[in-house]
């Protein structure tokens, strides 16, 4: 399993496009927002937590179709499925690799982009914490979506349609953590709910993803 994660990480680093792309997309979304809503710092700081979370979510979504697609096309997915590794573990490893290449960079970059959006001071640690806790859940849910659509040609659009409604609870709790911190309210309850959601997704989603993969590999 660890070998599989390392392989995916190496592929993401060396093949190019996969690793930096999500981060660059996140940057562009955040940079575009002030053009859309105007440069007043008061307004920007009010919507900054939501924008940062939305940007992270979209960046996460963008890289999802790569989770299984490349392995599917060159046949290595079938090879992995016939190996001793259970498909559930495979899906879990894929989710971890996706998080390490997409979620973790976003967590690191979000506070920097928060400066650009004039995020209020007390919100920084909570924003980073909510992203660190929430993005693994996004990766786990997204891996399920990727497993559903792996056999479909041009499945990217369908993938977004399927996965985005599943992201609603994470987005609500994640953005609320940062917003409440910015408004000097207690940010812990939504963060705890977000953590519970991510843990549940990480525990249950590999099974759903493996079920979908089994159907697609039949």
């Amino acid at each position, binding site marked *: 399993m660890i070998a599989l994660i390392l392989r995916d990480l190496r592929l993401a680093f060396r093949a190019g496009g996969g690793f930096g792309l999500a981060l660059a997309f996140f940057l562009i979304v955040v940079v575009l927002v002030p053009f859309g809503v105007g440069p007043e710092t008061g307004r920007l700081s009010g919507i900054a937590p939501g924008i940062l979370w939305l940007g992270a979510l979209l960046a996460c979504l963008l890289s999802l179709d790569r989770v299984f697609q490349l392995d599917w096309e060159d046949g290595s997915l079938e090879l992995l499925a016939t190996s001793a590794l259970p498909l559930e573990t495979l899906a879990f490893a894929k989710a971890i690799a996706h998080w390490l290449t997409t979620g973790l960079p976003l967590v690191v970059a979000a506070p920097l982009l928060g400066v650009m959006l004039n995020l209020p001071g007390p919100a920084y640690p909570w924003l980073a914490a909510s992203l660190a806790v929430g993005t693994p859940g996004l990766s786990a849910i997204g891996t399920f979506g990727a497993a*559903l659509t792996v056999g479909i040609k041009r499945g990217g659009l369908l993938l977004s*349609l*399927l996965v985005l*409604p599943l992201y609603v*609870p994470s987005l609500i709790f994640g953005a609320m953590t940062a917003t409440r911190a910015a408004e000097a309210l207690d940010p812990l309850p939504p963060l705890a709910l977000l953590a519970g959601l991510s843990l549940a997704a990480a525990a249950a989603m590999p099974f759903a993803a493996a079920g979908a993969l089994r*159907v697609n590999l*039949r």
Partner: protein
Amino acid sequence: MSSLWEYANPRKFMATSGALLPWVSGLAVLCLVGGLFWGFFLTPDDFRQGSTVKIIYLHVPAAIMAINVWLMMLVASLIWLIRRHHVSALAAKAAAPVGAVFTAIALFTGAVWGQPMWGTWWEWDPRLTSFLILFLFYLGYIAMWEAVENPDAAADLTTVLCLVGSVFAVISRYALLFWNQGLHQGASLSMDAEQNVADVFWYPLVTCIAGFFLLFLALVLYRTRTEIRARRLRALLAQERTA
């Protein structure tokens, strides 16, 4: 002793549903026309809401059905998953667009009522928003059916999607309650209340709910029959090609 599983046989299903269909459709038309006419023209206006209250005869039944259609799809999907009855998978497929339309009706009539009453077409209220998300789930489910070519694989994948979607629909509902306190009034109907609404409004409303349910039943039977026929046709064409 005949069992429910006999209807898993497409031939038996076709015979029974064919015999039932005219009755169910006739009753649906009767209940809908009767209930809506009764509700729209023969009930008094509400003393605060005026005549806008009458949209309840479309809004409430559509909203009730919107949720219950998804439940029916969930049950049908589970039957497909566990017992591999094709009719069940096709019934779930047939129900999805009907459910999506009911959800759209509930959202649209709610907006039409909300404009004069709340002063806004749309409000980010938990109830409204969860219906919007339910609508998105329906769209995703329908799109999944369309996207996969192999019918058995499509049935399996949509089943997994339906199971996961149901869990997330419930989570979203509670997350939305956490997110925003609502503007929408409490439930108009509940089982444990002595009297939900005044009797003058209650009887036509129940007639309309029965009408919507029968309409759903008729549409699902009709659409499932179409799906079965389409599948038979495809099998015949495949036979001809190989012969």
